[in-house]
């Protein structure tokens, strides 16, 4: 796995946006999506999310494994919830009767038009959230992460910590590989021999502990450098400044409207209730 922050969306329309737009768009979209349970509106949100994702021009071959993981994980989550809920379906309109197709053998969980629709809506919702969120990792220049969060109102020290975190990742990943190789050279065998989780956990100790302790001990240089430069003694300036252009403002306004619209619709319409497609209801 490649841990180095990869700017895969470099040069794309999305990468040209002010990075604050990307962060705020995800926030607005996620809070809008969690209020919508009508599968027709969810399909609209999914289309919007994939249009957004596509504008980042992230090469699919680079993120194929991430998509595979996401789809498998969502499927398990949705399926597990459907089975364990044993026919209880949330967000049904008042007084709605379920239309049961069959009962699962052994488990006895009912499969109905309603819980299938619920599962599909839940699946689409997770997919849309992932599509809208993935460009955060690949279409924001890692150089501007700190200033992005600072200009979003995060206290500058913590914005700096976020920036520092992102910069530490590649070097810690390299340290981890070095430690792993060093332990292998010393004869450590990390192949699982025992099925016991405790024994297998103890086998990871010779890799995890040196990586962590070396990272902490090596922090002294960074701390000294920051102290010598007077970190935290006054307002901080950033190397890059951010400016919202006309397109950024329009996009941002669109996402804010989406959030407001979803919230208002949740109270005024049936968008926050499941909509069961008529063709799924047995005659």
């Amino acid at each position: 796995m490649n841990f180095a922050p990869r700017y895969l969306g470099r040069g794309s329309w999305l990468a040209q946006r002010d990075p604050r737009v990307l962060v705020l768009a995800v926030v607005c979209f996620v809070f809008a999506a969690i209020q919508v349970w009508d599968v027709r509106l969810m399909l609209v949100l999914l289309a919007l999310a994939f249009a957004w994702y596509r504008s980042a021009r992230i090469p699919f071959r680079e993120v194929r494994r991430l998509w595979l993981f996401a789809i498998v994980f969502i499927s398990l989550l949705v399926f597990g919830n459907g089975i364990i809920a044993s026919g209880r379906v949330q967000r049904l309109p008042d007084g709605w009767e379920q239309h049961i197709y069959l009962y699962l053998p052994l488990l006895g969980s009912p499969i109905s038009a309603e819980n299938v629709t619920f599962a599909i809506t839940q699946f689409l919702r997770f997919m849309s959230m992932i599509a809208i969120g993935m460009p955060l990792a690949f279409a924001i220049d890692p150089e501007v992460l700190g200033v992005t969060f600072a200009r979003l109102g995060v206290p500058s020290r913590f914005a700096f910590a976020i920036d520092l975190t992102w910069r530490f990742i590649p070097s810690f990943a390299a340290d981890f590989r070095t430690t792993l190789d060093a332990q292998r050279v010393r004869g450590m065998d990390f192949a699982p021999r025992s099925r016991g989780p405790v024994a297998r956990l103890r086998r990871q100790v010779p890799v995890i502990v040196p990586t962590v302790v070396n990272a902490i001990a090596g922090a002294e240089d960074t701390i000294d450098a920051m102290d010598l430069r007077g970190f935290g003694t006054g307002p901080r300036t950033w190397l890059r400044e951010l400016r919202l252009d006309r397109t950024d403002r329009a996009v941002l306004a669109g996402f804010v409207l989406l959030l407001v619209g979803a919230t208002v619709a949740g109270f005024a319409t049936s968008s926050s209730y499941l909509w069961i497609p008529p063709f799924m209801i047995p005659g």
Partner: protein
Amino acid sequence: MTSMSMSRGSLWSIDSRVIVYSAIGAALYGVLVGLFKIPIPGTTAVDVRPAFALVPFFGYAFGPIVGFFTGLVGNMIGDQISGWGALTSYNWSLANGVVGLLAGLAPLYLRSMMDKSLAQKALAGAIAGSIATVIGFLIVFYDMIKDQMDFNAVLTTEYVPVVVGDLIATIILVPVLVYAWEPVKERLGR
């Protein structure tokens, strides 16, 4: 200064040391959390995540702010690296953050153990981490509102598996990390 030697007032101070340790904790957790997963035999979805022990350890060793940042930002980074998205399950990141925060508050409720021998400090780390894990992950029940999941589904497929796996990692690895870190800390003169 570390949490293991902090006064109550200094638990909340923010200096360059807190910022750097926060960044280190979050980066390490974000990198390692997806690498190691040890399935528990006989279960379908219960994994021990060794890297999770970093959250209570960083909280316990360096204070609640470092612990909270390590859990919150580290989990978001891990989710983003894995493709899940930093904000898709924001309540889980918050839960991780609260675990680090509660472990960092150990001087308020385990002071007597933390002033004693290294063995007692290591034991206190495991206890603080365990308490923090059990309480902090209660936040995942917000999935009942966010994703309209069933209570039993959250309990049996999310809360219990995660807490069991993370407790195993915490009880074993936090004392080991405390044992490894204390001599280094002394050598560094802190």
